[in-house]
């Protein structure tokens, strides 16, 4: 994370260190939940699952600068594959998870390949559509998904004879997985691959001029984000033991974006911080739960308007120059310079 920041002045250095505070607090909270157990555990479990989901979104959006509004589809594919395979076909959770991931990847290729070479709103709408389609399939394909009733009796996660049956074991397992997922995201960000993603989000033209196959890298990032979403979906059904179409609705997407913006888009720990804040807040404030989607929708809009870099970036990240004049000159440059 260090080289993301500008360390030229002591004050930015101090503020950058302060940037670690939420992450440290988040990790401390997870630790506390593991030790204390009880009420915090299920809450923290959801937060951790969302952290994985949002980390995937972050790779596609925070790094590559693209947006997918259908990540819930991949979560649903992962979740339902796990649910169906483990309950109806007695497949073990881990292979089921892998099959779900493969299905999500295939779906991502099918949607991403034609749309990622086109202008952004095609991708946006195609991804939104895929979220809806998968939702409809989960409702309509009753013989497999049991429609609105959903599937229950999904076994807890386990490898071989070990089963993470207690809350605490599950939480420890999730913590390890979150660490793995975030570690992978960090490795990606530090690599040639990750740099190419951030580069194309900065300027597609410049990236192409330096030999980066932009369409291919976007597709790769889309697939990676789908993998994360599928893993999150699969973990979710194992932790809860139940799945229904509503679990992976459109509000999951909005929630994911809100977490990403609250935690800090493009950062490694942002998804974890955002997921924990957004999951804990409704529990802290009485009555918020019912209006949750409303509040988060409004919060997201306000953040987009007033803190486009995300709440975490408030105050210490230099904004990209998006002043009107810059855009004007770019327009003019495109049109009249020759």
């Amino acid at each position, binding site marked *: 994370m260090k*080289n993301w920041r500008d360390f030229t002045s002591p004050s930015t250095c101090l503020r950058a260190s302060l940037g670690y505070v939420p992450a440290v607090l988040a990790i401390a909270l997870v630790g506390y939940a593991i030790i204390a157990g009880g009420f915090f555990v299920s809450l923290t479990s959801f937060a951790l699952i969302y952290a994985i989901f949002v980390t995937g979104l972050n790779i596609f959006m925070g790094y590559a600068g693209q947006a997918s509004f259908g990540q819930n589809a991949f979560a649903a594919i992962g979740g339902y594959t796990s649910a169906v395979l483990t309950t109806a076909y007695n497949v073990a959770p881990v292979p089921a998870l892998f099959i779900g991931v493969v299905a999500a990847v295939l779906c991502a290729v099918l949607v991403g390949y034609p749309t990622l070479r086109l202008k952004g709103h095609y991708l946006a709408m195609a991804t939104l559509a895929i979220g809806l389609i998968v939702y409809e399939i989960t409702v309509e394909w009753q013989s497999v998904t049991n429609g609105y009733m959903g599937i229950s009796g999904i076994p807890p996660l386990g490898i071989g004879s070990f089963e993470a049956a207690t809350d605490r074991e599950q939480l420890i397992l999730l913590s390890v997985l979150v660490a793995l997922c975030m570690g992978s995201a960090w490795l990606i960000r*530090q690599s040639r691959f990750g740099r190419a993603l951030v580069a194309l989000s900065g300027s597609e*033209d410049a*990236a192409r001029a*330096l030999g980066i196959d932009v369409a291919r890298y976007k597709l*790769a990032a889309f697939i*990676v984000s789908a993998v994360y979403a599928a893993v999150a979906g699969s973990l979710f059904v194992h932790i809860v033991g139940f799945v229904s179409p509503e679990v992976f609705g459109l509000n999951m997407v909005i929630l994911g974006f809100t977490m990403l913006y609250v935690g800090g888009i493009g950062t490694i720990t942002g998804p974890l911080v955002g997921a924990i804040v957004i999951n804990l807040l409704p529990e802290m404030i009485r009555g918020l739960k019912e209006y949750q989607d409303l509040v988060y929708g409004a919060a997201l809009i306000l953040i987009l308007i007033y803190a486009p870099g995300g709440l975490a970036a408030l105050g210490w990240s230099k904004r990209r120059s998006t002043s009107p004049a810059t855009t004007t000159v770019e327009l003019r440059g495109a049109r009249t310079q020759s």
Partner: protein
Amino acid sequence: MNRLRVENLTRRFDGLVAIDDVSFTVPIEGVTAVIGPNGAGKTTLFNMISGFLPPSEGRIFFEDESVTGVAPERIAGRGLVRTFQLVQLFQSLTVLENVKVGRHVCTRAGLVAALTRPTWARREENETERRARELIDFVGLSEQSDARASVLPYGQQRLLEIARALAAEPKLLLLDEPAAGLNHDETDRLSRIIRRIGEHGTTVLLIEHDMKLVMNTADRLVVLNFGRKIAEGTPDEVQTNPEVIDAYLGGVEMLHG
């Protein structure tokens, strides 16, 4: 052999001819500049050479191989790298990372290597880092190497963009108005850097308005006006060419006549 050969290149936009039957060659040695008044078609020419715009007619040869209609990223892979008129840095990357991205075509680690970090990939990354730091030194940005590109003053952004392009070890470097927006000192410095790039075996082709820079750095000039080539030659030859002066100032006969 020459580095670049452009044959009868033409580009039309909705009936408007931006580049009209232009041919020229860029030799392997030295710095060649394309000059011409506003609207002469210089950037259109660059966009075609670098693959961002398909020509309507004509062909482009890079080291005697046709690159007409080849995608920009493939052209870059062959060793032809460009910069942009309005600096196009990767704003959220650091100075060092920007230059590292420039090494893209010289390296091959992908997603799997990123996650598994095999020895060869680590070695490759170390080499990338070393080369990137060298180039940052070369353009004099060592002190800012960990700063985000977006916080650099404009002059330094220009230099960074050039360092990033050099990281790809190009055989031919296309610079689109490198001095635009620079002050006199910065222009002087840039001109020295361009000379040194040219002396180190990289062919340089640049578009420029700043006459001072062109006269100081270019070995050869190609002059465009209304999309046509009206002159080419050494700076001295071109400077005294009446047609060139005319192109820059407009209808002289109207002043006198």
